[in-house]
Each structure stands twice: as C-alpha cells, then as structure tokens.
C-alpha cells in the first residue's frame, strides 16, 4: 500500500489512528490514477470534492479524479478515499490538539447520553412512585370462609385492586355464609391508601324506611317481622367502592362471585351450626324450603349450590345495580316485606344512598389508628386507647394490671358508645363524639380508675342498654 511504504513515524502514527478502518480502505475500488498525491494536489482534490460539479477544472488529472469521484457511492469507502489522498506528514499528533469539529461531536454525544439517562431516571422514579406496580409482589387476604379467601386472592392475581378483591370476597360471603351477610344486608368498608396516606369510609349500612314509626314497633314483631327490615345497602356500597377504587370491570368482579353460587361450595361448620340453631324455631316456609330441605340442617362439608343467587348476580353484573334498586327485584322485595307486616316501599330503594366519609382517628404510641365514625362504635375503640395510653402498657407491665386497666377502660368506652347515634339526624351526637375522641377526657377518665378495685360502669359514666349479640 503506497501510504504505508513511504511512511515516516509521523505518518504511521497518523494512519494508525485514522478513523477509517483497514477493510474500508482495501475494499475501495482502485483507480489507475490512484497514486500518492502531493499535498497541494490532495488539497485541491478535496476542494473539488466540496465543489462537486461546480466549476470545471483546468488540470485534466484533477478533472478526471473529480469526475470519477462523482460516480462513487456515498459510503465509508468514500470517506476512506479522501483520507487516503489527503494524508500528509505532520509534526505533531493531530489528535492531541483541540479539534473544534471533534469537540462539538463529543459534546453532542455526551449531552445526548446524559439527557437520555436523566430522562430515563426521572421516568423510572415517577413510575415507582405513581405508576402501577410492575411486579406482583406481596399481599394478604383474610375472610370468614376459605372459598371466599381464595376468590379474593384470585382477583388480586388477575391484577384486580384490593377493593375489587374485597367486593368479590364480600359478595362470596353472602352466598356461602348467608346467616352473616348478603345482598339483603349492609355494612361498612374502610379503605386506606398507603402511598397517599388517604383513608375513606364507605358506609352502606341499612336505613330505616320512610314510613316506619316508633309506635309500629310496639306490636308483636314476631308476627310482623317485615317491620325489622331496613333498606339494604350492600350492593350500592360495593358499587360505590368499585367506582372509587375498581380496576377490573364491575361485570367481572360480580361474575366471579356468581360463579361460586353456580358452581357450588361446601357447607361450612359455622353455617351448619347456625342452621341447626334455627331448625326448631318458627321460620317461614320459604326459609325452610331454601335452607332446611326435608326439615334437616345440612351437615358441614356437604356440597351446595345457590342457582337463585347466581341468576341475581348475573343480572346485576350485566345490567348494574339498577336491577336491584329500581327493577323487578325492588318490587319483589317490597311486596315480600309488606306481606310480612313491613312498610318498606320501592321509593325507599330509590332514595337510598351510601355515605362517603373520613374515618375517626387518633395517635396511639406512635401509631395512627383509624376507625369508622358514628353511628358506628369505632369511636369507642379510640376512647379505650386514649385511656390506656396513659398507663404506658408494655410487655414488662404485670398482666394483672394490664387486664384490669383494659377491662375498666373498655367498660367506660362501651358505656359512652351506647349513647351514640346517627349524627346526620342528631347534632348532639357530635358532642359525645368530641368527648370520646379527646385525650384530655381520656386522662380524666383514667384518673377515675382505681388500680386495685373494679367498679360498675355507673361509677364512671351513665350508659344505655345495648342489644345483646347484635352485629
């Protein structure tokens, strides 16, 4: 190769660091005029190249080269050619000095890399804090029945939210444990968002019908059990929760519960025991037909199905909760209740609404405790903890003292809770609530507790009757 043959140390250095690779140079189509060019010719050739088909050259050799260069494809070989012909001896390493072009290129590359890296980092941080979790990590589901726990777990596995899982599991419990809950009941849901430190209470407890009066309840309620029925809130509560926190479609959430009713489940110990307890009591024929076939309570472990509930849930999954609150089911429920001496009407269903509210809360020994507000008795838990916090209970405190203080504190809390009611109907409830939430009040009540002697509740505060065993 011509360049290598006459290479001086400087030129060798120059080619060795040439940005053009060897293969590119050797693969270059050789031209007959391809000789080692003098520096000035090379310079002129480059100048021609810049001019492309600009002005005509007077030198035939240069013109020929220029013309052939126009035919060359634009490629790395093209670049190689120019470098080859422009090689000349230098007295210093051209790469050690600042080259404006190289510096600009490097700056662009570095800037681009840094910008890209910064962008990716910011995007990752945003994703970590605000995005959906990309890894299906830890979680736990607890319910009264194994079948419903598995179902809730399954919802989480399908990327459903915690609330989706809770809705399906709660509806499932209404199927498998109809003695504790169901579509004809109500309840309350507390949802806490750890990241946002935000908590909401969805109260879907039953409400009293519009036509109910105190006097009506003075009758024999065994003969008129319809009077005991409040407006069911279960489905509206579940739907409200799904609107706020649902991730998978309502239809899927409800259908998964419907599948349990359709495909069957095993009678649990608790359900079998509850049925055994009512077997000999006065219950309606409809109840007996449904739960006590042949007059016998099913034994635990027996397979059971609820195709009736499956049909209802399927309809609610497809048509929404209007099926329950303003459809044929509404008419049916109202007429059934009225036939049992009740006063529930279709309008009561139409007027029913859930309550979305903030929880009541306190700090207890470095922990933030959140409970459902009045008319729920969660406030009573706060009162008990307010009293107990002053005792600084640890595992070093003797059990006798811990038990005694706890018993007396809960006694006081129960007494105060027995005076609670719905604050939307009685503003004076707010005063009771404030008293129960107050740490100062807790301290005063603590001073009334004798460390070595139990007292009846009247020693601490007045109380009202509590219904035994009511949920």
């Amino acid at each position, binding site marked *: 190769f011509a360049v290598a043959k006459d290479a001086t140390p400087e030129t060798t250095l120059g080619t060795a660091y040439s940005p053009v690779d060897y293969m590119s140079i050797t693969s270059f189509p050789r031209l007959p005029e391809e000789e080692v060019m003098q520096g000035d010719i090379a310079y002129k050739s480059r100048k021609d190249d810049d001019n492309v088909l600009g002005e005509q050259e007077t030198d035939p050799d240069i013109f020929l080269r220029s013309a052939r260069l126009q035919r060359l494809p634009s490629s790395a070989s093209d670049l190689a050619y120019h470098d080859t012909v422009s090689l000349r001896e230098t007295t210093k390493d051209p790469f050690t000095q600042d080259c404006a072009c190289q510096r600009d290129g490097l700056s662009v590359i570095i800037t681009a890399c840094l910008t890209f890296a910064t962008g990716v980092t910011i995007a990752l941080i945003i994703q970590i804090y605000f995005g959906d979790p990309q890894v299906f990590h830890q979680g736990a589901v607890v319910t009264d029945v194994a079948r419903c726990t598995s179902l809730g777990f399954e919802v989480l596995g399908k990327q459903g939210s915690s609330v989706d899982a809770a809705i399906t599991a709660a509806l499932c419990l209404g199927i498998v444990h109809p003695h504790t809950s169901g579509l004809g009941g109500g309840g309350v849901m507390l949802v806490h968002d750890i990241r946002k430190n935000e908590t909401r209470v969805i109260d879907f407890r039953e409400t009293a019908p519009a036509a109910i009066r105190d006097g009506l309840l003075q009758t024999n309620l065994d003969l008129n059990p319809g009077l005991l029925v409040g407006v069911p809130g279960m489905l509206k509560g579940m739907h409200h929760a799904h609107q706020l926190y649902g991730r998978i479609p309502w239809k899927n959430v409800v259908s998964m519960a419907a599948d349990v009713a359709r495909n069957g489940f095993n009678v649990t110990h608790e359900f079998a025991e509850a049925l055994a307890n009512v077997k000999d009591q006065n219950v309606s024929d409809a109840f007996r037909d449904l739960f006590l076939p042949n007059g016998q309570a099913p034994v635990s472990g027996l397979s059971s199905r609820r195709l009736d509930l499956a049909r209802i849930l399927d309809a609610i999954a497809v048509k929404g909760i209007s099926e329950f609150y303003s459809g044929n089911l509404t008419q049916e429920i109202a007429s059934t209740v009225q036939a049992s001496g009740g006063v529930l009407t279709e309008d009561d269903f139409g007027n029913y609404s859930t309550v979305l509210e903030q929880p009541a809360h306190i700090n207890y020994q470095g922990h933030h405790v959140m409970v459902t507000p009045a008319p729920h008795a969660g406030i009573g*838990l706060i009162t008990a903890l307010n009293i107990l916090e002053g005792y600084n209970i640890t595992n070093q405190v003797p059990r006798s003292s811990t038990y*005694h203080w706890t018993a007396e504190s809960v006694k006081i809390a129960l007494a105060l809770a027995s005076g609670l009611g719905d604050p939307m109907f009685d503003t004076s409830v707010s005063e009771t609530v404030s008293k129960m939430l107050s740490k100062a009040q807790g301290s005063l009540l603590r001073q009334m507790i004798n460390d070595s002697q139990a007292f009846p509740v009247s020693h601490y505060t007045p109380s009202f009757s509590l219904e035994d065993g009511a949920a």
Partner: protein
Amino acid sequence: AAQVMIMGPDDHIVSVVSSLNKPFGSRIVTPSGILLNSQIKAFSWPNKTHNSRPNPHNSLQPGKRPLSFLMPTVVRPSNGVCGTYIAVGSSNGAKALSGITQVLLNVLSSRKNMSDSLAYGRFHPQLEPDTLLVDSEFLDEDVELLLAKGHKVERIDVLSLVEGTRRTNDLIVGVTDPRSADASALAM
C-alpha cells in the same frame, strides 16, 4: 358479621364488615332467594326490652342509620411509611370493641406477633349485669388475678372472632382467629 381484610399489591388496605344484624336477619326470604336484614332492631325505642334504658340519640327515624358495632379498623405508622400496618375486624356486636382493643394492645403495646395476639384468651366487660365475661382460652390463673381486683368473672365459650392482616415493611401476613373453624388467610 362477615369480615374481609385485604392488603393488596396496590398498597391499599381494605377492611369490610357486613351483616344482617342477627343470624339470618329477619329470616324473610324473597321468592328470588334474597334473605333480608333485621337492622331496625338495632335502633332504640321505649319498652323494647324489660328494664332497658333506650338511647335517645339512637331513636327510630325514617332514613336514619342505627348505632352499630361494625368496626373495621386500620393502623399505620404515625410518621413516614415505615413500620407496622394492621387491618382488623371482629364479629359479635359490642364484643367486637373489647376484642379489637385487646388485639391492638397485644400488637402495639406488648409487641406480640399477630398470631399470638389473636389467639390469646379475651374478656368482655358486660355492662348489664356488671360481669366480666372471659372466653375458653383465658387462663385460669388470669381469672384469679381479675377476681382479686373485684371483677365478677363468668366464663363462656367464644366471645368474638377477630381477623386481621399485618404488614411490617414488605412482609405481609394474614391471620385468622383460631376459634374459627372456617376462616382462612392467604398471603403471597
């Protein structure tokens, strides 16, 4: 009451407690198979029971919700996000209050683990008559301690069923009450 407690991968804690008031509610079943509640019984009215003192704030009014002992409860660290998170619920009316109080004391104050906290024997101070009910898990020696303080103690089989989940940093566990034959917990 029926209970559902969930701590999911979406960093939400959910506690749901629902009921029909009494077992099987009003025992009224619609032709389509819906069992109806008896929630009106949770209101107070004069002469409801013998010698009762009705709560005037819990009187019956159209559209009103009655006093309830449905107590879904959630605990988180007061400062920051690191520490213990708990979701608990309980059944059996007013006995839920005593049950949850004792479980939280065991976990938060006595630093017991969740399983032990739910398994320990529990008591419930009954207001009328003035009696301290203790369940079958409550130790005899502890009954003696309470008797010495002047409590009138009566033992019954089960007071309440408490269920819960606990998260400490990234470890989440679900725990059921060993008194329940059917409750179940799953954790991933």
